């Protein structure tokens, strides 16, 4: 009997907890953008395997943008818009010749019906032309790269974010044999 009373009280408390959970549960809003990590995924590739010292190679960062989202291109339509950039933090001995960005596409959006914005959407490949000189240690090397972008959906934008990307490569002596890797990426013309 005593147990029945205590159980009744506990059940009431449990019900209260469940009800409070319902009351405090956040409302879903279809306009709310996703977390940046759900919007953009990145994969990195290197054009030579291994990379001989002194021989120029390329790195590609393939950025997949979730359906319904876009990011400003490297050359956005207006100066106030934040461009997409890739910035390598080069270890000693590596040099950057150029960062290659594909042209964006002009698209109109509900929030900018008259003025098209130059954006990337779907998949975009950003490239870096790099060289490792004779001071770079032989063996495995990592080049950290920062991808900066600012993404929006059809009605809201996420703040600009910086995403770390890693380039992994093997460095060998100058003149050592190597082969072209990922020709499907590096032989293609840069496009968005």
């Amino acid at each position, binding site marked *: 009997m005593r*147990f029945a009373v*205590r*159980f009744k009280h*506990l059940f009431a*408390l*449990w019900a209260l*907890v469940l009800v*409070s*959970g319902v009351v*405090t*549960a*956040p*409302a*879903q*809003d279809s*306009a*709310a*953008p*996703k*977390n*940046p*990590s*759900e919007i953009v995924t990145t994969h990195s590739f290197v054009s030579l395997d291994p990379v001989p010292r002194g021989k120029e190679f390329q790195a590609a960062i393939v950025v997949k943008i979730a359906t319904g989202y876009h990011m400003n291109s490297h050359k956005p339509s207006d100066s*106030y*818009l*934040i461009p997409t950039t890739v910035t390598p933090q080069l270890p000693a001995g590596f040099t950057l010749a150029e960062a290659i960005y594909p042209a964006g596409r002009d698209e109109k*959006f*509900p*929030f*900018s019906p008259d003025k098209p*914005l130059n954006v990337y959407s779907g998949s975009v490949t950003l490239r870096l032309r790099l060289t490792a000189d004779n001071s770079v240690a032989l063996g495995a090397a990592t080049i950290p790269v920062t991808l900066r972008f*600012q993404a*929006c*959906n059809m*009605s*809201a*934008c*996420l*703040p*600009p*974010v910086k995403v770390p990307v890693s380039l992994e490569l093997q460095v060998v002596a100058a003149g050592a044999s190597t082969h072209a890797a990922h020709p499907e990426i590096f032989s293609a013309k840069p496009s968005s």
Partner: protein
Amino acid sequence: MAMNKAVRTLSTAVLFSVVMLGFSGCKGGSPSTGSGGTPAPLADEPDVTFKDLQGKDVTLASFKGKVVLVNFWGTWCEPCRGEIPILIAMQQKYGPKGFTLLGAATNDEEKAVDTFIHTTQFNVGGQQMTMNYPIVMGSDDISNKFGGLLGMPTSFLITRDGKIAKRYIGSLNENQVVKDVESQL
């Protein structure tokens, strides 16, 4: 004996649930820190102090007695810019009736915001106008006091007694926000 054990187990489960719900209710965060795509519960009456462009404190409480639409925006945010003509028109129409917009520039630099608000013209019903409502600086701490921002623009309708009546994520629906503001005046 077995019954007592069952009661203790149930008690522990209930206590755990209460604690976990308490934590979930406190969740804040911003998109840049990975809060996920679900809006947090609305704060009841946010105790917020903004900084204006001269660095002076502006408390939300100082607007008590007025209906306030706090609009989190950024100069870099195209949808935010797109709705500014609506906000200017609302300030013009409802300002004399006890309403004010409060623009909270977020992820921006004060200098860029200052230049923007004094130089950028917007077409408001065929008339070129600059922003005609108070502008303050937002921050992650401030947006967390509103329950966290999932994107911009995000606006909050504040009642005359300082409570959040409604949150709008993304571009405002003009008809809806006008209706909501009028219902508070």
